[in-house]
């Protein structure tokens, strides 16, 4: 692991010389190694980019970064969390997978630290088990599909076929979709997690003849599904839609031309028209030579949230209540557009529709089509009672 960025090295120097007052310790636990290491590396690249662009500082404070690899294993993540807790880390972030987050979140919050999520935010933590120190910058899981539900309801879609893996996130996403979509559901299929072959399910889709297919298949499953769907010849007949992150840059190059025409919701787009986003996208392409994925974008935005809140409190996180109030009340302009934290600390944000096309350089991109929802809330906010 490129453990110590220059920023962390400098911060460590300061730590040794006793300048601890203005140092903020951030623990970034993510999936860096093993087969699932791709998304974690995207996220850490996004976070690092912000530090590199800002001389390793956030809100005037020196940042001491602690990078940890969770191998996508809950117990390894817990071990990393234990280690960082013992090193008095102030802010945790980075975790990609819900089950990994859930294994570690209790001790992290019990230690008095903040968790500011760049990706995982399962329904429990948005609702009944919400916590005053847990913030999700990216999204609550369901939100990735809620905007899609809003859009398809408004456009009067009917006879829609739903497909997702049989695990909690899969159920969350489809629940999010159905929260706003009232039309007829032609079929709802849950497949085994990690399934390689979808030919049987695709044959069933053809037989059911729906108007549209909505699918949620993260990572390798998405590559398999979209390739196989296109090869079956159905792409031209029954269009497919997916939620945000559904066909992002972490899998798009691997799917290749088969992905052209896939419609996707998006909580962020690389074509988003604001200054901060341009700084991010151009900076990322320059630093890493590829188009950023939403995982990188959300980690970058998480860094910007921490930066903005630290700025509000003058670069010191010693006063936890002040930092929390700053997060809750600050005026933050996200690289996505409108953004603020809801009462359950989940984001209220806008939602866009994109479609996969080739850009001028022949690269596959999610071209931005329209904004389809504003100030989208998650569905669990009413269940959450954060005691001041």
């Amino acid at each position, binding site marked *: 692991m490129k453990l110590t960025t220059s920023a962390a090295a400098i911060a460590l120097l300061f730590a040794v010389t006793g300048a601890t007052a203005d140092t903020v310790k951030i623990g970034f636990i993510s999936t860096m190694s093993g087969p*699932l290491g791709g998304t974690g590396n995207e996220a850490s690249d996004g976070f690092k980019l912000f530090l590199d662009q800002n001389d390793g500082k956030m809100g005037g404070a020196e940042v001491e970064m602690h990078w940890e690899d969770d191998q996508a294993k809950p117990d390894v993540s817990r071990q990393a969390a234990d280690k960082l807790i013992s090193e008095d880390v102030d802010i945790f972030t980075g975790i990609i997978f819900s089950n990994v987050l859930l294994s570690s979140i209790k001790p992290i919050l019990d230690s008095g630290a903040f968790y500011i999520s760049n990706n995982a935010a399962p329904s429990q933590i948005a609702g009944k088990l919400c916590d005053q120190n847990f913030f999700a910058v990216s999204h609550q899981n369901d939100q990735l599909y809620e905007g899609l539900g809003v859009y398809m309801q408004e456009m009067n879609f009917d006879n829609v076929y739903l497909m997702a893996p049989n695990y909690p996130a899969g159920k969350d996403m489809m629940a999010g979709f159905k929260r706003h979509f009232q039309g007829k559901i032609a079929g709802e299929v849950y497949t085994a997690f990690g399934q390689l*072959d979808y030919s049987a399910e695709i044959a069933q889709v053809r037989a059911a003849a729906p108007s549209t297919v909505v699918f949620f298949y993260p990572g390798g499953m998405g590559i*398999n599904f979209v390739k196989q769907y296109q*090869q079956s010849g159905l792409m031209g007949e029954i269009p497919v839609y997916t939620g945000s992150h559904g066909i992002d840059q972490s899998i798009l*190059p691997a799917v290749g031309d088969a992905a052209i025409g896939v419609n996707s919701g998006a909580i962020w787009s690389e074509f988003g028209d604001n200054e901060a986003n341009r700084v991010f996208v151009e900076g990322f392409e320059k630093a890493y030579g590829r188009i950023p994925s939403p995982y990188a974008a959300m980690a970058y935005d998480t860094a910007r949230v921490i930066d903005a809140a630290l700025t509000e409190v003058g670069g010191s996180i010693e006063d936890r209540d002040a930092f929390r109030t700053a997060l809750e009340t600050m005026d933050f302009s996200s690289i996505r557009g409108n953004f603020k934290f809801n009462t359950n600390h989940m984001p209220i944000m806008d939602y866009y529709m994109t479609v996969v096309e080739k850009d001028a350089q022949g690269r596959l991109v999610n071209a931005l089509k329209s904004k389809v929802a504003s100030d989208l809330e998650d569905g669990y906010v009413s269940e959450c009672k954060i005691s001041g």
Partner: protein
Amino acid sequence: MTTGLFVEQSLNGLQLGVMLFLVTAGLTLVFGIMDFINLAHGSLFMFGAFLAATFVKITGIFWLALILAVLATGLIGFVMEFLVLRRFYHRSHLDQVLLTFGFILVFNDITRIIWGSIPLPMPLPEILSMPVQIMPGVMYPSFRIAILVLGLIVALCLFLIIERTRLGMWIRAGASDRQMTSALGVNVGLVFTLVFAAGAALAALAGIMSGPISAVQIGMGEPILILALVVTVIGGIGSVKGALIAAIMIGMVDTFGRVMFPPAISSILIYLLMVLILAFRPRGLFPANV
């Protein structure tokens, strides 16, 4: 289920089975003949796909890339066998499992160092990119038909080699009695190396053919490895015929299971099948070395 759908699903099951046979053939031969459990077989599957994806990018010709990647992976297998594995034929299964488990970790990271952690693109060959009509109202991806045909050709070739040639005779003899084979004056070491390299090439072929329909990514070999091990033991270790029949059985059961049962059941169906078969036939359907 209409007739058309039934035919299509049967084809899907058959194609999945043939694909599994391609992966399993090499594994079961190595297992049966050398009594060697090669968990790194899945890594060879992965190398095949990654190498082919790279050669496609360089040459632009799928079939050329296929041949190059099969040869390259065969060579990797040859080197592996020659340098390390041959020292482990007489060691316990446990040591073999541990050794090849170590290889999986090493190969995954080597792949990541060379190709990075983002999955690779692998387009369909141009002539097989469109689905074809196989029955009125039933379209089927032509590439999957190609897998089916290729798999059956490989199966046929293996049968001919094993049943009709001198090499095949050695292989059969080796599978049932190693000491006797060496007593016959056969250069057992050479036969083993060739069999291992051929097994690696077959794994690569399977990886390459699965490249255009599924994700070419690190770790792609592990789920396939488990399925291949399941096929191996159901068929009977060392039996190519058993592997073909078991693979098609698994393909069919998995395909129809996914359509007819909820995922909680369909995801354990093949394991259930295996446990039941082994409970009644503890050495698989076609035990090779009696």
